[in-house]
């Protein structure tokens, strides 16, 4: 069964304390993985797409990496404004448009 699991569920960091969020997936023939950021009361905001194992993408303090079984979102020297829920999603097996979303990681960065 297609599944996306994110860990940890919640993460509390001090400002400047780097860490990583994990997204593991079980789908046949991965065709892409998407990372989103969601602020309270808002829709998810697209961050990255990764299409193949070994691929990396960066944006400011965020760096996403992909292996054959999981993806990591590395946050370097986070700031309070990085506090949000981070979601990952993959296309379902055989479904190019149907995404399965993980439950998300709630990140809180304290000054």
């Amino acid at each position: 069964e297609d599944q996306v699991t994110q860990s940890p569920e919640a993460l509390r960091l001090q400002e400047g304390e780097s860490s990583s969020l994990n997204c593991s997936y079980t789908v046949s023939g991965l065709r892409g993985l998407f990372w989103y950021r969601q602020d309270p009361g808002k829709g998810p905001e697209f961050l990255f797409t990764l299409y193949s194992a070994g691929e990396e993408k960066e944006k400011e303090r965020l760096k996403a990496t992909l292996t054959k079984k999981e993806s990591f979102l590395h946050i370097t020297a986070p700031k309070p404004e990085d506090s949000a829920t981070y979601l990952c999603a993959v296309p379902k097996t055989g479904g190019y448009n149907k995404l399965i979303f993980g439950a998300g990681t709630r990140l809180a960065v304290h000054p």
Partner: protein
Amino acid sequence: DVKVTQSSRYLVKRTGEKVFLECVQDMDHENMFWYRQDPGLGLRLIYFSYDVKMKEKGDIPEGYSVSREKKERFSLILESASTNQTSMYLCASSLGQLQPQHFGDGTRLSIL
């Protein structure tokens, strides 16, 4: 930047009412989607449309229908609203297959 606009941020309706949620995108995207988001259940796909007048069921289509008469507009219809349809509804659009989906800010719907 892609802009996906949902007509209402908050909506309160009564059980049995027919409810319309509207979504408009301004980037000429082929695909449009409706999700609901509930605590502990995450984002679940209700319906999506890959062209005008074309639609496909998602994971939880029961109790919902959709309409796409123009490329930029995608409507979600609750035929007879029930309390278990109280949720945050999110609309999204994408350029094509395996392209990122871009979301609106959601409609928080309460059915009393």
